[in-house]
């Protein structure tokens, strides 16, 4: 059986699931900034403990939480090797052609890979514990103030919400098309770049056609029902933030402040 795609919503009743979606997006944003601020071992320790606690509280299995990282081992290997080989030519152990491997480069490679891993895991946990519709509503709510500076925030919010709802459908269809092309002999895993490129073309064209056909059908349906503009439409109001939402936000802000102090 296939593994769940990264970021797929996993219904549940954990503390993280019950948090307000706007707060969850803010938590994600602050955590990512905190990860970018880390520049000491203790900083990494704090982030690892914080993210591990979030995974525990979300009751999402460790394998699911780490799914996004395990899918990208090639990417991490390339990042690590490139940093090791090119980052610090002046401290190189040996110099061979264009390669100048160094300890500094190796440490930089580990640093970059660790940061990316932490960002991927926290993103995966938060999106797995938040229904796509909730993410949509939270995004809408967070960008609405833009309308006061003349940006059509309601229209952008509508576009974003439709885009988010399209992701699972198009993802399934893309997977189906990819498998169908593989069954027809497409060689995505061929070592030859030209064969890979030839395999890519018959996959991409049907994906776009299916997607645009869906867009056409949806726009006809919306216009037929009298939809003209996102502005002025009524929407469901958010429930007021609870004590647990404020607490979660306070904790993540504290983690961010700790990272600034440690720097």
């Amino acid at each position, binding site marked *: 059986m296939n593994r769940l*795609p*990264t970021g797929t919503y996993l219904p549940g009743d954990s503390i993280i699931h019950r948090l307000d979606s706007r707060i969850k997006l803010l938590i994600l944003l602050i955590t*990512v900034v905190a990860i970018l601020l880390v520049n000491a071992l203790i900083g990494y320790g704090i982030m690892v403990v914080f993210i591990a606690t979030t995974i525990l509280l979300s009751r999402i299995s460790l394998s699911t939480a780490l799914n996004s990282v395990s899918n990208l081992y090639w990417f991490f290997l390339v990042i690590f090797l490139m940093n090791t080989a090119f980052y610090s030519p002046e401290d190189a152990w040996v110099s061979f052609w264009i390669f100048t491997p160094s300890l500094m480069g190796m440490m930089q490679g580990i640093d970059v890979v660790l940061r990316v891993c932490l960002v991927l895991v926290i993103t995966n946990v938060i*999106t797995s514990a938040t229904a796509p519709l909730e993410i949509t509503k939270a995004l809408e709510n967070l960008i609405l103030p833009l309308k006061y500076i003349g940006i059509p925030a309601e229209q952008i919010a509508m576009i974003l919400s439709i885009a988010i709802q399209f*992701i699972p459908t198009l993802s399934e269809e893309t997977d189906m098309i990819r498998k169908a092309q593989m069954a027809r002999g497409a060689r995505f895993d061929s070592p030859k*770049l030209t064969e890979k490129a030839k395999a*890519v073309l018959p996959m991409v064209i049907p994906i776009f056609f299916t997607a645009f056909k869906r867009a056409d059908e949806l726009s006809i349906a919306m216009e037929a029902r009298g939809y003209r503009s996102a502005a002025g439409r009524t929407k469901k109001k958010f429930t007021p933030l609870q004590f647990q939402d404020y607490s979660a936000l306070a904790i993540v802000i504290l983690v961010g402040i700790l990272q600034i102090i440690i720097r």
Partner: protein
Amino acid sequence: MKEMSVVKLSIITAVCLALCVVLPQAFHAIPGAGSIYLPMHIPVLLCGLICGWKFGLLCGIAGPALSTLFTGMPPVPVLPAMMVELAVYGLVSGLMMQIIRTKKVYVDLYASLLIAMMSGRIVAGIVRALIFSRGNISMATWATSYFVTSLPGIIIQIVLIPSIVYALMKARLIPMRYPHAEG
């Protein structure tokens, strides 16, 4: 070209945004494909060419951000530079389609596409040199990362994007650019 309604333009933009998340995921099944085939560029360029500069710009800014939010890729440190690059693709491709009108669809499409691809790369190089990777990017690194490594992606974009737009016109999923000239 017969104008599309705002609703249809919005929905096409939404679909292109969703493809900014979905396509890279499909390409990640092929080892090392993300940085070679540049899958996220295709929907953004298409959106700019079909829907115009405003929607292209939105797609270029929001596409990578949504992808980071849902899949963690591109990683956050790379995200700002990528948002600028893709925003320029969407913006310039839309503007060029508005400006260039040669009565030949393919000429309009290729000219707009190539100018957009070039502008995006130049602006991305400049913002990386001045802001995001200050002091860590040379002319050689820029040329390697934006032209050499991604050469298969560039070729795929040049081959694929005008053909997709033309095929969508022929399939009547978007209006013809010159309805009288092409019957």
